[in-house]
């Protein structure tokens, strides 16, 4: 290639030219060009597996590109490793935080670049600097709190402070809102605006359309490793961005008929339960779910939803109260008994609960029912393979391979395996917890349509989600959970984001 240097305008902080990265036969990044202006919030939008993270990992020095050039402040650089990236002024906040739970905020932030005096740690000075930094950017954290005792949203701020402490001018945030509540997302937006106002530049990696419109100045869409377009975020619509991202028109809202509720399938009465720390997390919860309706539970994470669901699925024993499925008392029964009573469960954590990642897709197709796949005491692989094929074809699992390890599938396809498996069991009650967390638009659309058609087939569906959009889109009735109690019930068609948001914070609906 030519040796001429590129004179860049002063406003250009970073320029990527023809970046290509191959993993074996897979081209993760295919000649991607990207320009980041000084002081902008730039969104990198794409479905899971589109190559966003690969591109950013190249920028952060975790991968070496096979082709292409990187210009930082007008000068060509080869970023050798993360340390080099940090020295240049590039900071990254990963989706999964890299913090030490038992260390304090200040210790985590200064880790690797500790403040010392006479070769000893000077924690007083470190604390002071962290405080200074957090005040300057309005990132309220207490330097003395331990990481394990603060909320996820605060942990994220610690990660951002960590990058700023190391002198980052460009911040890369990987899926920053995946773990946040609506209010925390709002807060993050303010923080980002403040950072930009003080001269920083931000790249957010995301597949959420709303965020792009809400937070970003410009957006670059990536599909299957290729750059599709770079646009000004202002004036775009969700539908247009979705079309660019997926490559076809996407229906963002679910069309559904009014529910025709039938007999009561799930009845919960005066349920109480404790969390892992022995504190009461579910307090006197009573509700019912009928056949043919979707009941949504809305709430900020950590208000007892997880414990409630664990009680309903047998993963936790309630301290008092009753759970009845189809008239059968299943209070405190084992997960197997509850499954046998006609309950399907799409769990909150697909990698820890929903799948055995080191099993093949076929073996996972039998999870929850594996004894039914035995013939005279012998495990029948043929039956597992048949079931897996049914799931793969019915739920569009890609690649369509029953002999692949579940680990090797993308998050969306892992979720399709779980959803398919649970739906094909034909349960009377389906408990779906965060069924589309971390999935891209296409997969969300698909799973939502399936849940609605299950409802129309007369199943009772209990949906727990932290995404208000999802709840409002799907649920016929919405229960709001706050501090372990159900504080309100709202008919689905009457719900508004503001109203639910207030209820979730413990306010009243009339406000």
């Amino acid at each position, binding site marked *: 290639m030519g040796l001429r240097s590129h004179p860049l305008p002063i406003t250009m902080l970073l320029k990527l030219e023809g970046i290509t990265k191959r993993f074996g036969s897979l081209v993760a990044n295919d000649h991607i060009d990207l320009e980041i202006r000084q002081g902008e919030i730039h969104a990198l939008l794409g479905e899971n597996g589109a190559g966003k993270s690969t591109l950013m990992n190249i920028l952060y020095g975790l991968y070496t590109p096979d082709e292409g050039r990187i210009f930082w402040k007008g000068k060509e650089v080869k970023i050798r490793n993360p340390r080099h990236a940090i020295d240049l002024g590039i900071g990254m906040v990963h989706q999964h935080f890299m913090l030490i739970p038992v260390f304090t905020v200040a210790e985590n932030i200064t880790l690797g670049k500790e403040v010392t005096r006479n070769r000893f740690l000077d924690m007083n000075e470190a604390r002071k600097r962290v405080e200074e930094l957090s005040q300057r950017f309005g990132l309220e954290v207490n330097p003395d709190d331990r990481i394990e005792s603060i909320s996820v949203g605060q942990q994220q701020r610690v990660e951002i402070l960590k990058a700023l402490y190391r002198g980052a001018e460009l911040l890369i945030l990987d899926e920053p809102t995946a773990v946040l509540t609506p209010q925390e997302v709002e807060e993050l937006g303010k923080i980002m605006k403040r950072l930009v106002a003080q001269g920083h530049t931000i790249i957010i990696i995301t597949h959420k359309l709303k965020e792009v419109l809400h937070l970003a100045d410009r957006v670059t869409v990536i599909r299957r490793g290729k750059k599709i377009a770079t646009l000004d975020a202002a004036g775009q619509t969700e539908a247009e961005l979705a079309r660019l991202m997926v490559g076809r028109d996407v229906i963002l809202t679910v069309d559904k008929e009014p529910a025709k509720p039938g007999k009561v399938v799930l009845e919960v009465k005066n349920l109480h339960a404790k969390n892992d720390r022995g504190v009461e997390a579910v307090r006197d919860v009573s509700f019912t779910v009928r056949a043919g309706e979707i009941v949504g539970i809305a709430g900020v994470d950590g208000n007892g939803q997880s414990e409630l669901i664990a009680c309903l699925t047998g993963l936790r024993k309630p301290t008092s109260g009753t759970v009845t499925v189809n008239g059968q008392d299943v209070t405190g029964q084992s997960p197997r008994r509850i499954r046998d009573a006609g309950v399907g469960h799409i*769990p909150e954590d697909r990698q820890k*609960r929903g799948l*055995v990642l080191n099993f093949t897709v076929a073996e996972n197709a039998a999870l929850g029912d594996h004894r039914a796949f035995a013939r005279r005491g012998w495990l029948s692989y043929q039956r597992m393979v048949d079931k897996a094929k049914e799931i793969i074809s019915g739920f569009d699992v890609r690649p369509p391979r029953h002999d692949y390890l579940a680990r090797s599938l993308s998050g969306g396809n892992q979720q399709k395996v779980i959803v398919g498996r649970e739906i094909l069991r034909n349960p009377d009650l389906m408990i779906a917890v965060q069924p589309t967390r971390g999935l891209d638009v296409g997969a969300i659309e698909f799973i939502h349509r399936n849940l609605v058609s299950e409802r129309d087939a007369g199943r009772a569906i209990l949906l727990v989600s932290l995404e208000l959009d999802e709840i409002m889109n799907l649920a016929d009735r919405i229960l709001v959970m706050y501090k372990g109690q159900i504080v309100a019930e709202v008919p689905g068609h009457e719900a508004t984001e503001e109203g639910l948001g207030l209820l979730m914070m413990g306010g009243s609906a009339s406000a």
Partner: protein
Amino acid sequence: MPDQSKWKAGLRAIGIPVLATIVGLLVGILCILIAGKDPVLAAKAFYRAVAGEPRMFGNVLVSTIPLIFTGLAVAFAYRAGLFNIGVEGQYLMAQIATVVVGVWWTPPQGFEWLHPIFALGAGAVAGAIWGGIVGLLKAWKGVHEVINSIMMNWIALFLADWLLKAYLRPDNSRAASYDLQQTAWLSQGLIEGSRLHTGIWIALGTAVVVWIILFKTPLGYEIRAVGHSPGAAEYGGISVARALIITMAISGAIAGMAGSVQTMGLNHRFNETTALLGYGFDGIAVALVGRLHPVGVVLAALLFGALQASSGLMQAMAGVPKAVVSIVQAAVIFFVAAEGLWSFLQRRRAKKEVTPA
């Protein structure tokens, strides 16, 4: 095309232990050179000890038999995510049980064939109890199996010693128990001139049974699910506690059969034991080198059996110290366990290829 990935995975699974063995042997040759001995002569001695005569090979198999059992025991537990360091104790308790049945129970006339079966069964049950206790404590109280099984080893060692001295021997002058009745012996002479006994068939049969349990039964599915992901297993309606207890009991039974078969086929008595002899640790090594798969365990046991059986002749013929054989064993284990190192080096190479461009 469709099976390419499987082939690759299979090749990798076999390739690394084979490569590790070769590197281990090279390290051995290096040690022999450093010791100032002739590696060619040592190789000749090794060959003679392993395949020089049929009876030599028979002796290799004699050393292999207990290693197959102990390797299987460790590998089986590992599939459920449990590290069974208690093989040694299970082995000792099984020997005691086998001695009791072999010495004091006399089968009725015409039913002599029952004697080895009962003696072996008693050993397996004793091992299962000794292992099951560890599983029970883990499932019930969350006691870590490594700590627990190490302590069970010491309990077994001194319990066996006390039982031997108090009840199992005729008088103080004898450093062993009564002899087993001949009806409880496993017949020797599978290969003329060697002490190879029918325990080899029991060992190979056990390997087949382990493979069947793990991969062809619902129980094996549960065990592997628990081993890979206890959370997912629980979600799927599998009782993790039950799986842990059953796994440790079966693992203990297999370890126990090692002791029983050794007693019935080779020693015909329980010899006084004042220290833990390392059967359990050999089992861990065999299981690791055999990559936790029954077929791999049998092959690894054969390798270690050959190294053990040849050490005597290598010392006599080539003056190679026995310690060198141990070094070779250690080197093989090291290089197999260092798989992480291999993939690390590969990644480095891949990176190097990219940067100069």
